[in-house]
């Protein structure tokens, strides 16, 4: 239990110390993020891969309102916790070639956000979950709005209000569940045990789903995302796409499915349809994007659409696929954005047509980029394949046509990703790219780590699958059982 508290609050402590660290903030934050990673790995090693919740903490917090500091880790949480603690150091390292103004604030906000994310991923109390949900949003808003690019104020305001709109309705749903709960608390187990009729579940479903759908984002709640990704600083984009959107996915798995299975039963179909539309739609839009960052943003929508579809398909393959893909997508998309950041920091543009021929002058970057692109297009042997394969299989078990349309992602993904790769890296160098220098120092470290993860997870995904298997299975059984009692 101490471990979990330490895990959650170490980044917060780091944030405070970083904020006071002044010039050495970069180093301090790196130390704390790496320490968090180590701690997460220690926890992962001590974790027994069964369906139980471990390292549970249950402290009274606001007792009068039935709010407890109740957190714990099961396989599913551990996965996203690992992802978070893995990506944060990577993201911090990736910022080493930037000279941000007021770095102390910048790194402190990242670490603060990490605490929020960890709260979201470990909370077993709905209120705590909500607190973490918002606590993660504030820092990223500031990160994006202070250090962002053109038009950042308007774009981030939209992002902020859009996402918080969803979460407020979720709060309404949480309050509703709380009131329905005879014990009058926010305990997740008590929520699981609620017996709501299908109309009630329908409402709660929408209250939660919209919040999650906006966060992921699922079509048609996605329009904040490309702008925000484009305008955010590179590290902000990585945080948003790498970790933050997993909050939505995790929310669906942890809160939506088990609490309102009948709602999912009634409305999940629509969710799948939206997700699948999103896959094709976003992929198609990605075809003709001129800005590489925007292209990756749309590709992210497509990928997340598949994850969402896989989850709502509600079977072991889809769910496990979602698990793997959460991890993979986090790693891959961070890699992609980092490469684009490297390019941007060198030539000050991410416009696809202005680039070209970088492979010739920066072969190491081109190889790393290629591996990441391949991971993104789900080439077998990369992490992306495991996820997409399982997800597609999950969707397939739901419906063959759904899978056939969702599967278009593997074609479309190849089209736009390779188009981007070709136009950015291949061809002749131009006046802009001729002076391009290859990656070095922390850039190498970060990119090679990402590439290694892509391949290792692709070749040997078993640890991940093993980690989540029992929890996922337990979840499915739980939900199915509950669904049977409702019907």
């Amino acid at each position, binding site marked *: 239990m101490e471990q979990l508290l330490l895990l959650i609050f170490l980044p917060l402590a780091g944030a405070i110390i970083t904020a006071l660290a002044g010039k050495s903030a970069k180093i301090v934050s790196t130390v704390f993020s790496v320490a968090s990673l180590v701690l997460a790995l220690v926890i992962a090693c001590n974790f027994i891969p069964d369906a139980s919740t471990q390292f549970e903490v249950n402290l009274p917090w606001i007792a009068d309102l039935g709010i407890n500091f109740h957190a714990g880790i099961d396989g599913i949480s551990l996965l996203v916790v690992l992802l978070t603690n893995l990506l944060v150091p990577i993201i911090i390292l990736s910022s080493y070639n930037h000279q941000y103004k007021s770095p102390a604030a910048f790194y402190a906000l990242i670490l603060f956000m990490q605490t929020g994310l960890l709260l979201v991923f470990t909370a077993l109390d709905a209120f705590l979950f909500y607190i973490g949900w918002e606590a993660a949003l504030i820092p990223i808003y500031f990160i994006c709005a202070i250090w962002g690019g053109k038009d950042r104020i308007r774009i981030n305001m*939209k992002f902020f*209000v*859009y996402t918080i709109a969803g979460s407020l309705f979720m709060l309404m749903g949480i309050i509703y569940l709380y009131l329905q709960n005879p014990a009058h608390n926010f305990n997740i187990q008590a929520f699981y045990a609620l017996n709501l009729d299908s109309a009630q579940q329908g409402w709660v479903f929408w209250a939660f789903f919209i919040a999650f759908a906006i966060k992921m984002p699922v079509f*048609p709640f*996605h*329009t*904040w995302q490309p702008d925000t990704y484009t305008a955010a600083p590179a590290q902000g984009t990585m945080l948003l796409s790498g970790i933050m959107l997993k909050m939505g996915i995790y929310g669906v798995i942890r809160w939506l499915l088990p609490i309102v299975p009948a709602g999912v039963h009634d409305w999940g179909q629509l969710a799948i349809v939206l997700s699948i539309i999103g896959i094709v*739609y976003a992929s*198609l*839009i*990605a*075809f*003709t*994007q001129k800005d590489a960052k925007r292209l990756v943003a749309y590709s992210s929508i497509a990928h997340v659409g598949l994850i969402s579809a896989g989850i709502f398909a509600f*079977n*072991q*393959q889809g*769910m*496990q*696929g979602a698990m793997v893909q959460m991890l993979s997508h986090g790693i891959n998309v961070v890699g992609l954005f980092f490469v684009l950041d490297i390019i941007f920091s060198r030539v000050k543009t991410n416009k696809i047509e202005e680039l*070209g*021929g970088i*492979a*010739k002058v920066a072969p190491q970057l081109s190889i790393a980029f290629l591996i990441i692109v*391949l991971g993104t297009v789900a*080439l*077998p*042997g990369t992490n992306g*394949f*495991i996820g997409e*394969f*399982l997800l*597609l*299989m999950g969707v*397939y*078990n739901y419906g*063959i046509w759904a*899978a*056939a349309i969702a*599967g*278009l992602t*593997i*074609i479309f993904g*190849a*089209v736009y990703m*390779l*188009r981007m790769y*070709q136009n950015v*890296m*291949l*061809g*002749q160098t131009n006046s802009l790219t001729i002076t391009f220098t290859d990656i070095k120092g922390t850039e190498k470290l970060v990119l090679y780590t990402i590439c290694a993860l892509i391949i290792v997870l692709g070749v*040997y*995904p*078993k640890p991940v*699958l093993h980690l989540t*298997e029992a929890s996922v*299975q337990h979840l499915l059984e739980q939900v199915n059982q509950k669904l049977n009692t409702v019907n």
Partner: protein
Amino acid sequence: MTIEQLIWLVPLLPFLGFVINGLGRNSLSKGLVGIIGSGVILASFVISLVIFFSLQGDTQKSHEVLLFDWISAGALHIPLSFLVDPLSAIMLLIITGIGFLIHLYSTSYMHGDAGFGKFFAYLNLFVFFMLLLVLGSNYIVMFIGWEGVGLCSYLLIGFWYTNSAYASAAKKAFVMNRIGDLGFLLGVFLIFNTFGSVEFAKVFPQAASGSTDILVLITILLFIGACGKSAQLPLFTWLPDAMAGPTPVSALIHAATMVTAGIYMIARSSVLFDLAPLTQHIIAIIGAATALVAAIIALTQTDIKKVLAYSTVSQLGYMFLGLGVGAYTGSFFHVLTHAFFKALLFLGAGSVIHAMHHEQDMRHMGGLRKKLPVTFLTMMIGTIAIAGLPPFSGFFSKDEILAHAFQASPILWGIGVLTAFLTAFYMFRMMFLTFSGKYRGTHHEESHVHESPAAMTLPLIILAVLAAIGGAINLPHVFGGNEWLAHWLSGAGVAQHELELSYSTEYSLMAVSVAAAVIALLYAYTRYVKGARVPVADEAPRSALAKLSYNKFYLDEIYDFIITKPLDALSRFFYRIIDNKFIDGIVNGLGWSTNEASKGIRLLQSGNVGFYIFMMVFGIIALLLYTFFYI
């Protein structure tokens, strides 16, 4: 050493080669790279031979080797395991054997290239994936190889990536393969759903229990996958473009090995396909159509590699025709012989190109026979083999397919013979244009043309020998053979269909096809040697059919028009109209209207106390009315 102990070395060695060459591509000397690159393949070949022979002497024809559990989720368990049986064993030999020859050839061919190390790394990686493809004991491991070779194909086609046309060709190949891959993947899903497993060993025994409808669906989906990989209609257009890669790549990937993966996969799954007659018809028709269309296109091409590329497509169509009519062994036999003679032809073409300093247009060649005697001779053997003239290997394999086709449907047979005729014609056309007549380039260039070094000619010679005698491995009964290959493959569960034709029918069928080839040869001879005709430039007027053929039936343009352009237009429409105007418009519109409401409502606050009091009184009246008279 048992098979189980050896087999993992076969793919591992090329992989090690890839790693070493990949990491040391800039530091290792070219010689060392060549030795490592070729050496690992040779070692694999040797091990494959050992495996092959120990399998021959083994009563147990199929060995499964589990490496580790790869993916498992719910009922789905996918081990990373290898299956060694006669089918994969013989594929191993082809891949590593021909692979080695081509590696050897490349050490010389690519010697001047800056990316020498990278090239060998890619080639080794390709061999690794190809081995994975054939060794996989289930569809998913097969799929790793399947996509992996696609990746290598992408990398190698775009090897000279600074040329963006080449890079585009690479992308096209990858994407078109991906279209097929989706079909393949869906097929695999359906297999899993139907049979509860994706292991060959578990699926095939249950095949008969599946309903025909589902089997048809499964097989059609798998066939779509094969179409992509093996360049069948309508997905074949990537293969000719793939000639952008270095010539050894064309030989290895786009002729001998990768493109035959589709046939291998269908042969592997023949149990399923055999139970789906509808699919078989479709396969036969598409195969025949591809064979014919590609052959027609090949007639007018002027690029020596393009001719061979279309010829490859055409021959692949042949193989699919064979698969469609149930001649699994025949098709696979053709895979083997085709691997020999097409690799040979490509390498020969490479030798020519090498000699011509990367000139590929046949209109600028001619009279090279004397300059390149070995190349000419070996290529001639290859040409004769592909033309189907006895007793070279192509004759036997082609005739087995044709015989089965005749048994199935005389029309298919007719198309087959017509294709054979066209094949013979364009192949000899190519030979004559290249090697006979007078040199059509400048004198200065001519003086630089010389025969390739031994590292290049040796593989040619070896392949020529194989192309000449390769037919022996499945000598049909009609020639007193024992159909060794058929027996061998039956050990791998490949479905066998005996010909029920009388020997006399078989003889007459052979006679027809041989006659067609001979007539084509003579016609080509009169036209290009006697008439010394040279193909005209693009602008010159042609007949409608010639134009159609020269422009590849405008397929690329059609695809561009009906797929690429609409998708791009749709993309822009979605982005500009739906996304930015409509969906985001609604979101922004909410904000905007709130803002407008704010602008309007704040005017209520007019600053005038009288007005305020008015509003208050109205409020009071309204509230009282509401309270007492409404509710």
